[in-house]
């Protein structure tokens, strides 16, 4: 992903921190097996281009995503997290995404309070037929995170001995 502008990229949470010129964001994508993962598969088979910054992990359902996963992703390497599941009403397990939706809202609001920008953690509903939408979502998340700059809060590698 080429940086959108030639200006210096500043971390929004730590304005004193300027990104190195070769910095590329790392985004962790957690996709539900039945809709979003199949949707991302469709994006690939239909040869739609989308940014390669996303690292995809497949989970059985969006309600499998513990808030802990998001915390750990932000704390290790990710600059942003994208979680995607089935549209409401389409869950393979009937109601999994309704439970997940509640947890996502609380997690996002708590992270915003402790000083993360709201765009660091994003959520989407992508069905198996929406390959084009998945490409758009990944592009939007990547663009957002590029604008926010690198995340250097509570990273564990900062403390490695």
């Amino acid at each position: 992903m080429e940086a959108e502008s030639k200006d210096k990229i500043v971390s929004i949470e730590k304005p004193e921190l300027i990104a190195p010129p070769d910095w590329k964001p790392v985004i962790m994508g957690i996709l539900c097996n039945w809709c979003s993962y199949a949707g991302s598969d469709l994006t690939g088979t239909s040869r739609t281009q989308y940014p390669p910054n996303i690292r995809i992990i497949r989970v059985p359902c969006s309600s499998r995503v513990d808030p802990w996963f998001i915390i750990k992703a932000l704390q290790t390497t990710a600059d942003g997290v994208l979680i995607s599941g089935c549209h409401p009403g389409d869950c393979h397990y009937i109601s999994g995404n309704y439970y997940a939706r509640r947890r996502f809202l609380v997690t996002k609001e708590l992270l915003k309070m402790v000083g993360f920008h709201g765009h660091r953690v994003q959520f989407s509903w992508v069905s198996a037929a929406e390959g084009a939408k998945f490409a758009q979502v990944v592009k939007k998340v990547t663009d957002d995170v590029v604008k926010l700059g690198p995340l250097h809060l509570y990273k564990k590698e900062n403390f490695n001995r």
Partner: protein
Amino acid sequence: MDYSNQIRDIAAKLFAEGKIDVFVGYRMSGFDDNQVPVVITDPKETSVLVFTEKSVFNLTNYLKADHTRNKRVGLVVKGCDSRSLNLLLTESQVKRDKLYIIGVACEGVVDDKGNKMQNCMECFIPDAVVYDEMLGKLQGKKDYIVNADITELATKGLVERREYFEEIFENCIRCNACRHSCPLCYCAKCCIDQETSTLYNGTNTSSSAFHALMTWSLHLAGRCVDCRNCEKACPSHLPLHLLHKQNEKVIYENFQNHLAGVEEGDRGAFYKYSLKDPDDFIM
């Protein structure tokens, strides 16, 4: 608020009738005028029991300890304690028929300096919601008030909040006293501990504190009853209530005014859903 004599009488009576094996209450610490929890198995010792506005701890935490397990227990609960007891009952951690609960119409407890605790000023359920016997005059439910610290934090900017919380996480010494003092943290193996050895090399950094405290508070979201046992136990005096009160506020405003443990059979906000839950933050 002084129910010491009534509680002594009730405990002695329960022991005499053979209704309980142990009694969990408060006694004077012996060093100052503060109180500490006490577990009594001998009927002769009931004279040490006290209950005043210095009885700050949530005694339901002792229901997960060995000395009360599989025994018939008598215990004293305030409003907030009874809410955590409600959750423990629905989560099958304790059995109702093994408990004799003395509920108290709480008028608020005080901290070390004698000031009324912040959570008592904002308390909306001062009376015990689950009890066998009630002490004091019932006060009824009050309106939910958003925590003053949360309202103040919301007015600050992103960088300011980041600096504020970075200091909190830096001061954490990872002693896990917050987790052990929490009545609702009863997992035999905690997911936070699974990472300790490999990820952090046993060090306590703001990174590991961030991971531990955020995971802990999110696993308690929708269940925390704001008893502030964690804050009383914290040796670094961290304002841990900020994390819980933020979750409580978001849950109250978005999920049909849910408040943990107020109703019997309540399992916390994340164990149910509504089709009308907010969806506008999802792409």
